[in-house]
């Protein structure tokens, strides 16, 4: 059974909506800036991918009068992206009643932002907002499913930085096993003092805009965002007379089984995931025209990811780039955002440029596409995500 992508929805440091994101990607314009909104000692000192809208701004954008309280920033940006995706796929309220529709989201830290804002008062036994209800990554998904009337299946998963990629593969499996007709899949994470300090303590943050695959790379810039896509079975596409944007051709999932914070030297887990993706999609390395990499900008990731690609592609690596220099690393949302960027590249026939690159990493010598490569015929794109703890997912999308 063929699985199609019929709708896209995104809010990222590049802007709200697919159009704004596409324009910035095409122009090679980064969304990385100084940390402004969050109250932290790192304010003004750290480059991050911040969505420059307050929660009130986001509420205004949504124009909703029925948001179930308490809600988190995570829920707001997820809802914005999900609504755009549903709209894009032309799914109406009556369609939600008519078809077997599911919602699968992913997040690493859920409502941590609201938890951290209230925690000091809480432990001092002062009165606080209800943060415990919104703390779980399940909360936003449950509230959104309830709001939209989605009853057939809903869940939230956490596999660190590959979370939303896994949400996409799970959705695909539910469609293929004929348990659903349509599924909205993706992920969300907001910036927080918690993650900023966490990654800082691991010495994984770059104090400058990140340089994916560059020899002088120092680490990641954290980002926040929500990316959701609508997947449908072939039958559903035909019944609803929808023109899909791309085909979800195949995927592969594997564990690196090596370490909690580092990838194995040869990126074994990612190699296995890529090879499984080829088998699942019945394609080979020569069929891939562009690899949209995980490319976080850490010394370990870009080295091992490059080695893994070189091994699997037998040194014949197609055009590749990392988009982390546009959005920062949006953690759980990264995988879905990458797929959305890949669909944008696929349907508009261009390769996204990898910003801030000067010199290749000597151990593999790989050089990404530096500037927007226009009018490039693309048949198939491979998009990879690697989560801390060894969660590796490789997804291949194709032209319809």
């Amino acid at each position, binding site marked *: 059974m063929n699985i199609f992508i019929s709708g896209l929805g995104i809010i990222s440091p590049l802007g709200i909506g697919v159009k704004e994101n596409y324009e910035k990607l095409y122009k090679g314009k980064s969304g990385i800036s100084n940390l402004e909104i969050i109250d*932290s*000692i*790192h304010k003004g000192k750290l480059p991050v991918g911040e969505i420059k809208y307050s929660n009130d701004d986001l509420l205004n954008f949504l124009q909703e009068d029925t948001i179930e309280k308490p809600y988190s920033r995570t829920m707001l940006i997820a809802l914005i992206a999900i609504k755009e995706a549903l709209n894009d796929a032309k799914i109406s309220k009556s369609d939600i009643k008519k078809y077997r529709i599911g919602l699968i989201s992913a997040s*690493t830290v*859920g409502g941590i932002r609201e*938890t*951290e804002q209230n*925690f000091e008062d*809480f*432990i001092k036994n002062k009165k*606080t907002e*209800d*943060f*415990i*209800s919104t703390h*779980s*990554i*399940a909360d936003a*998904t*449950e509230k959104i*499913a*309830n709001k939209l009337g989605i*009853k057939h*299946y*809903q*869940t*939230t*998963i*956490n*596999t*660190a930085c590959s979370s939303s990629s896994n949400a996409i593969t*799970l959705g695909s*499996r*539910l469609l293929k*096993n004929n*348990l659903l007709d349509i599924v909205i899949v993706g992920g969300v994470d907001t910036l927080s*003092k*918690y993650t900023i*300090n*966490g*990654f*800082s*303590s*691991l*010495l994984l943050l770059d104090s400058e805009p990140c340089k994916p695959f560059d020899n002088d790379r120092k680490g990641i810039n954290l980002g926040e965002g929500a990316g959701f896509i609508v997947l449908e079975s072939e039958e559903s596409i035909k019944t609803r007379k929808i023109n899909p944007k791309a085909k979800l051709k195949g995927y592969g*999932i*594997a*564990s*690196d*089984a090596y370490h*909690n*914070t580092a990838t194995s030297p040869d990126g*074994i*887990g990612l190699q*296995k995931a890529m090879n499984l993706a080829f088998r699942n999609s019945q394609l080979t390395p020569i069929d891939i025209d562009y690899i949209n990499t995980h490319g976080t900008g850490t010394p370990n990731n870009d080295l091992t990811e490059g080695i893994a690609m070189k091994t699997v592609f037998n040194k014949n690596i197609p055009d590749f780039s990392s988009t982390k220099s546009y959005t920062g690393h949006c953690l759980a949302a990264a995988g879905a955002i990458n797929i959305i960027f890949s669909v944008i590249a696929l349907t508009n026939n261009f390769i996204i440029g990898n910003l801030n690159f000067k010199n290749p990493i000597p151990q593999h010598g790989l050089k990404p596409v530096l500037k927007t490569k226009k009018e490039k015929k693309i048949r198939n794109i491979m998009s990879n995500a690697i*989560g*801390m*703890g*060894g*969660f590796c997912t490789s997804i291949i999308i194709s032209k319809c």
Partner: protein
Amino acid sequence: MLKLPRLYIKKTACTSSLEIILNKNTFNFKQFKKNREKRMIIEPNYREVLNANISRRGARYMKMGLYTALKCLESNTKEIDAIIVGTGIGDFSFTEKFLLEMIEKKEENLSPNTFIQSMDSLISANIAILTQSDGYNTTYVNRGVSFENTIIDAGLHFLEDKTNLILVGAADELTANYAKAISKSGFLDTKHSKTIKKSLGEGSVFALLSNKGIKGEVFIEDIQVLLNASTDEINKTIKQLLVNNKIGFKDISLMLADRELVSNLYGLDKLPTIYYKDYVGEYPTSSSFAVWLSEKILITQHIPNLICVNNTVPSTFRKIIIVNQYKNNTSIILISL
């Protein structure tokens, strides 16, 4: 409705507030205090299966899950095709720890170990590392049906390919601050909360599932999950489940259920019932304990002496139905011999 193949339960392990005495042909619980406000696990001897470093410095959530998973895999020599874990609360204790550090140390010189070990995905990742399993690996964080989601995922795998052995499990840890926050927010309060005081609990259960089984082995025959379901919808789902499996209420030997929900359900009130949350407390993945208990009852054909059963207990046990409710989540699981 979901239709999955039979999921045979090959092996289980349980870490609980109950002290479990397991013999070859029977099992029992040691005397426990009823009406405790919090049901905390009997802390296992982590050094049995975990190294000194993890045992000493590891996050409790992770240790609890890892210990139980490794006990489940103790005598297993076959390759595990997938590792799927569910949690409702996640790693709250190390999240608290890092938050406190951030406050006390004003965001300077923070412990990376605390941050890394505060992740929900920690258990499934570390099972893979410790067992060197390179297959499918994921963590569901979906409140009251987190464990059910792992079973459904395993079922999907069995439908899709030659997958043979899948490890599923759940872990939920209770901390003092979590209990306090839940109480203050009224998150778990229902209309009965003034009269029925809920004990909060914690625990972990792991099970090795296979799509191949032999006579005398217990299998999960059906599983359904609902969100924001009305009593009517739950009743309809139970009815449909019975029809789909060509059975009636008379074929159900025993029910394991949530006390509050069951009083509203049609036809089930005559069934011999164990209110399992009376023994392990309320936590998102408590249904994993119900699954563990069901498997043990079916294999040993024995109910532990200290467990109360509502209504007359049958002489043999063939099918057990679990009806679980946690806030807006409902699940119905049919376990059979």
